[in-house]
């Protein structure tokens, strides 16, 4: 069989062996529906996939190594770029991990927690909206993409209001919400969005569409046992009927204090993963509403930990000649300098902090040698692990199902390759 040797890009080789019935097709790395630069070495018999081998690394930027070569606060800018569809969720994961490493989880003010939850859930909404759009587009329902992005635009607007950025948010800082917390009116806008958020368009056009069901039901089925043994997390796991959500199972931030349900599918096929994600969108809006209410109650409380070794002082105290007239403060100046020059130095040790990102279990594993630069950083990215099940999922299915399957496991190559 010719499939044992890698074959160059799809355009090059004519069918290799006239007498053989198999052919190797390179799906990617430049392909409209591999969600980036995934390359899948696909062995086909007719249109049926006999074997699929994902080949990753085309977007490898060495994020882990970059984080290991810089201060902790530098590392956060790279988390924006792993799962770029839901940057705030990644930021939150990174920050929680560093805080755990520093041992200051308990010092984080309530309000920061709720703001983080709002941001993370907004990230989930924005990530899922990208997914629904591209998934629809992959299967030919092109308007979905625009509708999804129309909705996502509102989330981006909310990002922009609080962080200033629409994609690479780089928001929140270790120790709290950072120099800026929520601007006035932001909570109102978030609530407005959460109230008005609807998936009617998607339900009407996709969920109940027979063609969509035909394309997704019974495709790429994975049983609960297999899903667990492949290490699937997030909607991919829940689509197979496993009720496992880190927000419930290992609550972080204040997820144990909000009420929400974990949507679980039944069939483990593309369609049930689709349904799970759609329901998660609703749950996210529900969580957001509760968080907004709590954040309102906490309005006026500090959003940053009272820990001068981690949180830089207010800038007014540093720069003595602010128009506000506050005189500069030597201690603040020194703290400011020390934090920005040396960052924070967690005690020696290691920590693993996992959150439920839109894609699944996103974890940061840090080893600290006591300096301001992480000795080791590993990102357990859900996309990478979930992608591992792709060969299993698509085997025996048709070429077109590959596209549906890739869409349904919702990978982001920035996260896969890191």
């Amino acid at each position, binding site marked *: 069989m010719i499939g044992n040797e890698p074959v160059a890009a*799809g*355009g*090059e*080789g*004519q*069918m290799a062996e006239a007498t053989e019935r198999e*052919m190797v*097709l*390179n799906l990617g790395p430049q*392909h*409209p*529906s591999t969600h980036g630069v995934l390359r899948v070495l696909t062995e086909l018999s007719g*249109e049926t996939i006999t074997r699929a081998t994902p080949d990753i690394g085309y977007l490898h930027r060495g994020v882990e190594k970059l984080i290991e070569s810089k201060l902790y606060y530098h590392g956060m800018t790279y988390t924006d770029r792993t799962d770029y569809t839901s940057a705030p969720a990644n930021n939150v994961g990174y920050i929680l991990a560093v805080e755990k490493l520093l041992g200051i989880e308990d010092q984080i003010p309530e309000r920061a927690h709720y703001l983080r939850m709002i941001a993370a859930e907004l990230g989930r909404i924005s990530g899922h909206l990208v997914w629904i759009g591209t998934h*629809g*587009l*992959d*299967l*030919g*329902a*092109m*308007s979905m993409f*625009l*509708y999804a992005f*129309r909705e996502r635009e509102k989330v981006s607007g909310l990002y922009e209001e609080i962080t200033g950025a629409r994609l690479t948010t780089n928001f929140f800082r270790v120790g709290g919400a950072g120099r800026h917390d929520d601007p006035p009116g932001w909570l109102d806008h978030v609530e407005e969005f959460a109230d008005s958020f609807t998936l009617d368009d998607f339900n009407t*056009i*996709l969920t109940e*569409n027979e*063609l*969509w069901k*035909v*394309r997704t039901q019974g495709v790429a089925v994975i049983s609960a046992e297999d899903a667990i043994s492949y290490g699937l997390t997030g909607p991919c796991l829940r689509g197979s009927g496993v009720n496992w959500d880190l927000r419930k199972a290992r609550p972080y931030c204040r997820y144990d204090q909000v009420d929400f349900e974990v949507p679980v599918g039944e069939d483990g096929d593309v369609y049930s993963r689709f349904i799970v994600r759609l329901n998660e969108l609703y749950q996210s809006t529900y969580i957001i509403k509760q968080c907004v209410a709590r954040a309102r109650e906490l309005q006026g409380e500090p959003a940053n930990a009272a820990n001068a070794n981690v949180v830089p002082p207010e800038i007014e105290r540093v720069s003595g000649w602010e128009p506000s007239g506050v005189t500069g403060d030597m201690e603040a100046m020194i703290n400011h300098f020390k934090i920005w020059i040396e960052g924070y130095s967690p005690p020696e040790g290691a920590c693993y902090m996992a959150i439920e990102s839109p894609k699944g279990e996103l974890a940061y594993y840090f080893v600290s040698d006591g300096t301001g630069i992480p000795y080791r950083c590993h990102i357990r990215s859900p996309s990478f692990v979930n992608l591992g099940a792709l060969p299993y999922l698509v085997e025996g299915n*048709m*070429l*077109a*199902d*590959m*596209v549906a399957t890739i869409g349904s496991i919702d990978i982001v190559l920035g996260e896969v390759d890191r």
Partner: protein
Amino acid sequence: MVDGWDVLILVIKALAIFIIVPVAPLVFVLAERKILGRIQSRIGPNRVGPWGLLQTLADGIKLGAKEDFIPPAGDRVVFWLAPLFMVVPAAMAWAVIPIGPEVEIGRKIGLWVTDLNVAILYILALGSVAVYGPVMAGWSSNSKYALFGSLRSTAQVISYEITMGVAVLGVLVYTGSFSLVDIVEKQKDMWFAIPQVIGLFVFLVSGIAETNRAPFDLPEAETEIVAGYHVEYSGMRFAMFFLAEYANMFLVSALAVILFFGGWHGWTIPGIEGLTSVLWFMLKTLALMFVYFWLRATLPRLRYDQLMAFCWKFLLPLGIVNLLITAVLRLGWS
């Protein structure tokens, strides 16, 4: 007898087709983009010319200016010929399409180039010739994606040709003539869409499938096989594929109007019956074109095996059943 006027009129008609076939797609492409834009809550082309009207023209100029790339490992001659096989049948079919009744401008002039008595067969024949475009393009590109596209396209077109033929047969049972003019004339009182509603469904589905449009756009499926058989084409050659696709859509729409929607028949304004007839014809055709765009905006694409199963297991039996019913009804009538 043939005189100079006849020749002149023929030449004018032929020229009209030569103009319509390339220009209509330009309009349709723009219309499609505008309609898709509105459906997707956006504006669509709005930069080139007023309201973006010159967008397709600009695209055409851009395509014309592009490098004409031929894959080095491909088959040059076949690669070169393939787009012609797409465009020429699409244009040739228009020779038998009547867009209006016979009008009186000094003399009786039929608003068609020729009224073949085997027009339907002629069109079906051209349809089967059009298969060669994707086949040749896909094979000569020497690319796996292109080959996949051409394989899909071939199988799809051949299969749906059959269902289309079966759907047309129902109409033929009513008319007893292959001539399109005859068929239209027979619908003066009632559109065949009413007795032939199943046939219409089969015909429309087959027509969409024949033209490789959503939700049957598997041969091109960007998200699966990138662009199918024309993945290696660029510049003017690609433009010809593009042109042919819209010309074929236009053709199928026109054919559907002729076969099922009474062609040019409609409420006419006395005095300018010819013009209103043509307008009716165009209106009906454009409505069908809109359906094309509408479907494209909405529906996900079928999988290959589902497409085939749909054709052979559903559409073909349905068409045959329709034919049987029609035949029985006709026999019963007569």
